[in-house]
């Protein structure tokens, strides 16, 4: 009985860490680019994930996660950097006022009639990669302890609980000015992208998963520094009254 609870709690907590990364990406992209394409992307990701899990089953642990992390991480990093840069420029230009007035850059939110493939792709990748990691945790803990059913409950439970928290929080996220939101999501995508791409190359991070927090601190400090520099530069150029 103790072993059963140990498997349940361990798989729940380990899966929750991966689910937080998944939900952060989906909520951030949805709030910035619009929800329709993001949710379709997330649902497509869950669909592909379900097929992979059903087809491979326990053989899932044989899937090479390294190359997958490298590809997804590199794509998130290059895309996240674009939002990181635009976010710095917009927040430096208009502070926390959000979008108002003329924008020299393209709008971040999709306004076209069809699918926003950028939002779809980001949500899809986040769900497939993090979902696969949850599946690996479930298979390795469950098979190791001979409690696969309990491990599945722990893993699925974590995704549902963290997803529910994301659902509750998404209204608060929508109140954040778009320019600031773009900066925050850019920083998050760059952080996860840096972490996953290097993990995919086999690079060992000091402190393991906690290195994500370290990266976040470095990138937030970078954003604050560059916003201050950009503002000072703009003020220096302003003619004296």
């Amino acid at each position, binding site marked *: 009985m103790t072993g059963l609870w140990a498997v349940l709690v361990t798989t729940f907590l380990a899966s929750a860490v991966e689910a937080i990364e998944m939900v952060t990406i989906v909520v951030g992209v949805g709030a910035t680019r619009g929800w329709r394409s993001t949710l379709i992307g997330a649902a497509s990701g869950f669909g592909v994930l379900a097929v992979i899990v059903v087809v491979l089953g326990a053989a899932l642990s044989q899937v090479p996660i390294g190359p997958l992390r*490298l590809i997804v991480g*590199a*794509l998130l*990093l*290059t*895309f996240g*950097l*674009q939002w*990181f*840069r635009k976010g*710095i*420029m917009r927040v430096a230009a208009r502070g926390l006022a959000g979008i108002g007035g003329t924008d*020299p850059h393209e709008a971040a939110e999709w306004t076209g009639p069809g699918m926003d*493939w*950028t939002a779809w*792709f980001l949500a899809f990748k986040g769900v497939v990669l993090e979902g696969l990691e949850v599946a690996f945790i479930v298979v390795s803990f469950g098979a190791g302890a001979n409690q696969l059913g309990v491990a599945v409950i722990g893993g699925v439970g974590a995704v549902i609980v963290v997803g529910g928290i994301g659902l509750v929080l998404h209204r608060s996220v929508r109140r954040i000015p778009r320019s600031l939101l773009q900066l925050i999501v850019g920083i998050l995508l*760059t952080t996860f992208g*840096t972490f996953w*791409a*290097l993990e995919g*190359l*086999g*690079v*060992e*991070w*000091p402190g393991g998963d906690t*290195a994500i927090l370290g*990266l976040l601190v*470095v*990138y937030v400090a*970078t954003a604050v520094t*560059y916003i201050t*520099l*950009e503002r000072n*530069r703009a003020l220096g*150029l302003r003619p004296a009254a």
Partner: protein
Amino acid sequence: MPPPLSWIVAIGRFLYNFIVGDDWTMAAAVAIGLILSAVLNANHIVAWWLIPVIVVVMLGVTLRRAGRTHR
């Protein structure tokens, strides 16, 4: 343009905008950084610091360039 060709062009354009965006130097720096990180790691040299340094430096470079362009 006939459908199969227009789809390929649309996918190519989407991937270019997604990966490269409006400043190709940043994507190029990330690609070079990942290759160098792989080389360092293969030679058992600590490599986790390289990409964060490239991110911080390249952001500064592209922001400065964008500032000059807008002036």
